[in-house]
């Protein structure tokens, strides 16, 4: 019992100290030099790591080679954890950094997004808002029920993963998911080849033609004490990630007590009535810091056009 509570507090420390702590642990296992990859790419996020000779260096997260567990191991959750995500709609201004970091981290081609950002408006008179949507990692996941071969599974830590070595590509899970969270590899995309590591369902990469994939809550990052790509990439701190049993969520800067946050901000789950019991909570878009129109600021044409059919854009068209 004592041991357990000690463990718990250490874990909480991890979350609080965030990225440095994660890198520290990795250094402790003497893995850091091997974690560094020679590849250089445009930085999305810098993390501090300790090299084997004790120096602290700042490196691009994309350069970190994360340890990957086997397909077999990926079936079991990280013991004693139950992950939860909270997305603060009041702060989202469609900066799309979460999408970019996710795409890069999972070696996804353009247009095949695990994290999608919708422009929603519940009815004519209500206010439009930006709605980042990862996989909800439902506690009652229909996608898992309908899979004929057990290629997608729910783990003890709440994460729903897809094993693309097992997936036969029948796409039944895609019709089963009411949130359109799953994507299909319609061909072999060149981005898949960027990832030279062996495949692990936890990394969700490299992708495979003819199979289904989706947001995975980045368990490979969690294992080294980090938060998912989208969480650390968001400049506004919109996305919080944490453990529902520890009752803590963090966006990398601020840490909150999950239950209090949900209580104070009237947190809710999207389409609760469907009974899928999502592990992603939303904080309603109240007292917003940014006008919805700011979300169109730096978008390129292709992405701007995605919202052409929304009532908001139609109304404001010159």
């Amino acid at each position, binding site marked *: 019992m004592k041991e357990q509570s000690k463990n718990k507090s250490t874990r909480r420390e991890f979350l609080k100290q965030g990225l440095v702590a994660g890198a520290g642990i990795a250094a402790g296992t003497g893995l850091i030099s091997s974690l560094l990859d020679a590849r250089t790419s445009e930085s999305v996020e810098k993390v501090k790591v300790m090299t084997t000779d004790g120096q602290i260096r700042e490196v691009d997260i994309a350069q970190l080679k994360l340890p990957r567990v086997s397909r077999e191991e990926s079936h079991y959750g990280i013991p004693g954890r139950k992950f939860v995500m909270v997305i603060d709609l009041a702060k989202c201004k469609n900066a799309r950094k979460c999408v970019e970091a996710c795409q890069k981290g999972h070696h996804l081609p353009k*247009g*095949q997004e695990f994290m*999608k950002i*919708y*422009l*929603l408006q519940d009815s004519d008179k209500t206010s439009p808002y930006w709605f980042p*949507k990862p996989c909800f990692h439902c506690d009652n996941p*229909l996608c898992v*029920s*309908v*899979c*004929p*071969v*057990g290629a997608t599974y729910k783990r003890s830590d709440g994460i729903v993963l897809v094993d693309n070595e*097992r*997936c*036969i*590509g*029948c*796409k*039944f899970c*895609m*019709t*089963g998911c*009411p*949130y*359109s969270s*799953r*994507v*299909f*590899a*319609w*061909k*072999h995309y060149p981005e898949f080849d960027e990832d030279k590591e062996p495949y692990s369902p936890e990394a969700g990469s490299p992708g495979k*033609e*003819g*199979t*289904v994939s989706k947001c995975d809550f980045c368990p490979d990052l969690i294992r080294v004490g980090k938060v998912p790509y989208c969480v650390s990439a968001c400049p506004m701190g919109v996305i919080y990630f944490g453990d529902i049993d520890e009752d803590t969520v963090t966006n990398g800067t601020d840490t909150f007590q999950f239950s209090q946050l949900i209580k104070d901000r009237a947190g809710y789950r999207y*389409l609760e009535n*469907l009974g*899928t019991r999502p592990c992603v909570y939303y904080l309603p878009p109240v007292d917003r810091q940014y006008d919805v129109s700011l979300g169109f600021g730096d978008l390129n044409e*292709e*992405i*701007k*056009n*995605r*919202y*052409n*059919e*929304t009532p908001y854009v139609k109304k404001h068209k010159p």
Partner: protein
Amino acid sequence: MESDKNILLKEFAPQLNSTGPWGYAWISFLLAVICLGIVAFFFQVLRGHEVTGMRDNVVWGIYIVNFIFFMGISYAGALISGTLHLFRSSWRKPIIRMAEFITIISLLIGPCFILLCIGRLDKLPYLAIFGRIQSPITWDVIAISTDIFGCLIFLYLAILRDLATLRDDDIIKLSKWRKKLYKILALGYTGTPEQQLRLNRATDVMAAMIIAIAIIVYSVLAWIFSVTLQPGWHSTIFGPYFVIAAVYSGSAVLILSIWLFRKIYHLENYITKKHFVSVGVIMLVLAAFYGYFTFSDYLTKWYGSEKNDELLIRLLFNEYYWYFIISNYIGVLLPLIVVGIPKLRTITNITITSVVVIIALWLNRYLIVVPTLESPYLPIQDSRPEWLNYGATWIEWSLTAAGIAVFSLLFTLASKFIPIVPISGFHHDLEDKKEGISA
């Protein structure tokens, strides 16, 4: 009695032992279409499913539509032939063989279409190795394989007498290998009273079984859709609705094939207006049921106007307006009018109606699959037109055409191997013969 059989054999000899120039042209045409399908299939395998019109929202396209369609006419064949057999309908004899052929041939083609939807055909054995009973796809795999097995047995029992007749025949000059094949397949059946008794019993049992299996299989197929939470699919009526729609489309395909074979093989003496009207009446009853189920389904969706149901209905009545009118208005009303009014009941009218019904029912499945996937809970926000709306590509159309061609080819070949009208059916039962020929 023996002479009756011989007369029949002589009459059917041309279709069994020779193929005219038109026959060869027809078969070559079908083979050409099948080749096109094979090319399309290789394109799809080599370039990935990107060559189809399917995308992340509409993940199932006309392949699934064809799958439901072919399975539908198959179950219909099973239900119609099984029921006619059990009720000993006197007029059934000349057309029952066609219903049996439709059943088994479409049952072999249908599942091929679902395979075209599968992203990784190389991992297909996983369905057996890692199959999970919780998944409706596993139910479907079990149900369809049971159905194929059951229908093959039923068909075999039904043709056994004719196989024996062809083995013993010395009127038609058949090649040696065919004689040999008939001999093996006839299993030493000579028509002793005991053999007849056993065969009749076995056929009765199988007829009853395939009726039950057909209902179960088609319901399971419907549940693949209705167990999901998608607004257009999550409906309790889907099981019976699919069964009715299936039998309905099957009755139409049966009428069309009766008409074609009657024309091609000159069966005017055996297949008469009575047969068209009888199957037409079955089609009429099914049209009424189909209309009723369709109406109930859409009425409840429309009246309650849940947000996503409303979006779907709006889509159906705007972008899919004509599809909806053809499949759910004309497809219901036309048979009611044409078969319902005695004056309009001509062979040509009934056949034209059946063609319209076939098209309407195909569109009905299209309307079930595609618009629902185009209107998910979260609106599709994409700048790529092919992501917003589904449109089948030439790959999918070619494979669809190939499916129809394989169906026609197998039907043609089967009619060359086994008489399309049961020979022994006539000589076996004098009463039936008189009914069948003189009607």
